[in-house]
């Protein structure tokens, strides 16, 4: 099964990822432009066979230790693109087309792939392409959803919308849940209409340790600590044991951080 947990830096669906880890899913193909800590944790937990991505870093901190270990030990197979190519794959998927044209550079990544240019019927130019990416499931975390399943986001969207539109099934977690129609005035923030969304769960702070614009900030301290935690395979497993397998759900995970710690992240200082 191909899974895209969306959200570029912002609104990363960590609560959903943690639950996937708790349920001991396996053999997933994980797709994300930026694997970030969310996939580093999932890779450490052994849920993935394959990764489709474009930038596997800990943003502003460094590399992703569990990802590195898995790649260097040959435990995971990679399908790698540039950001533009990755987003273009989603654009094709979202538009129902089998490929997307873009003027991409010839890199060692491109040279490792089968040739994939098309000839422009008007200019004769060779135009590079990438194949469509249509995840089986795309998971998004949003600031607000309503009972019709409409999803609303403000701030950075990255490739969220295309990742969702390209998916066969879209599932969402949301910071706030509203009755139908009350969010209609926020039409500029609509990410997806409800008819494109299969299920929504109300999960406050469901993006921790990433952030939700206007609600809570990125847990920079944890992003920095992760390097030390994950570099050591045993310590990494112990962290998963304590924080993920050892908590029954996201509420317990949050309680474990404690109200005081979380209040420091909350915009305005209170959850």
């Amino acid at each position, binding site marked *: 099964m191909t899974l895209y947990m969306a959200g*570029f*830096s*912002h609104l990363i669906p960590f609560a959903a990822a943690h639950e996937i880890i708790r349920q001991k899913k396996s053999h997933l193909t994980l797709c994300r*432009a*930026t694997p970030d800590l969310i996939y580093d944790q999932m890779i450490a937990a052994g849920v993935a066979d394959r990764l489709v*991505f*474009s*930038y*596997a*870093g800990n*943003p*502003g*901190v460094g*590399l*992703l230790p569990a*990802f*590195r270990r898995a*790649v*260097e030990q*040959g435990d995971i197979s990679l399908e*790698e*693109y*540039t*950001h*533009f*190519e990755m*987003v*273009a794959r*989603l*654009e094709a998927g979202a538009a129902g087309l089998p490929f997307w044209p*873009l*003027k*991409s*550079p*010839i*890199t*060692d*990544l491109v040279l*490792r792939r089968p040739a994939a240019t098309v000839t422009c019927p008007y200019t004769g130019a060779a135009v590079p392409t990438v194949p469509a990416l249509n995840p089986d499931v795309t998971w998004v975390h949003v600031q607000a959803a309503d009972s019709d399943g409409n999803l609303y986001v403000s*701030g*950075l*969207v*990255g*490739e969220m*919308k*295309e990742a969702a539109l390209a998916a066969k099934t879209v599932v969402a977690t949301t910071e706030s849940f509203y009755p139908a129609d009350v969010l209609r005035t926020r039409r500029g923030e609509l990410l997806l209409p409800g008819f494109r969304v299969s299920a929504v769960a109300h999960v406050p702070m469901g993006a921790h340790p990433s*952030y939700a*614009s206007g609600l809570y*900030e*990125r847990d*920079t*301290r944890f*992003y*920095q600590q992760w390097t030390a935690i994950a570099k050591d395979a045993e310590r990494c497993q112990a962290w998963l044991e304590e924080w993920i397998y050892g908590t029954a759900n996201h509420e317990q995970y949050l309680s474990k951080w404690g109200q005081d710690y979380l209040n420091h992240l909350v915009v305005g200082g209170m959850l």
Partner: protein
Amino acid sequence: MNNRDVMAIISARLLEDQQRVLVGVGTPNVAANLAKRLHAPNLVMIYESGIIDARPKKLPLSIGDGTLVEESLAVLPMGELFSQYLQTGWIDIGFLGAAQIDSRGNLNSTTIGSYEHPTIRLAGSGGAADIAHHARRTITILPHSRERFAAKIDFVTSPGHPPGGCRTDGGGPWRVVTDLGLFGFDSEGEMICLSLMPSHTYEEILDMSGWHIPFQSPLSVVPDPSPEEIRVLQSLYDTLPGGAL
């Protein structure tokens, strides 16, 4: 002042007011934010996360930080930024880091060792290859070492000047900033040393590079970081929760 701070200050000087610069993560991010607080208040900082004309109150730690969004002109879907702004030539400067560079400005940020069996698996391209290809010209910042300045890099993540000459469209690698020197490219597309960093020598550069980098004479020395540059850089670091990086 550590080497990184000096590199940030020297590369900040390369940015001009009003330019549209696509800012990469790491030292380029520090340098662009510094330039905007020094001589280039109208620098248009663009981030591959989709942000146009960021005006961050604090130094952003990553290219997706909320502080980049708050006072920005626009937050675009990444697809729009890449296809409608980068691919169409609206970015003046691509500002990149890398793990390795060769004499033609090819950059590696993917792997040390082979791709299949890496010694160190790095983060990969992100937008770097796209930016290197489509920006009107690029500045690359990286520390100087024999491993990093390699006759043959382990992987071409972002292509530099093509074999036999400079890119014909005027694009491609323009400046490289290291802790030892400031570099450009000659008409053949080969790297050339333009200036030395303060208190460093050309011999050090030859020692620390995997090929012979010629110099452009007379070989000048980059002016020392000024008190104002140091002060503003420190005030930028002071905006971080934990102080300097």
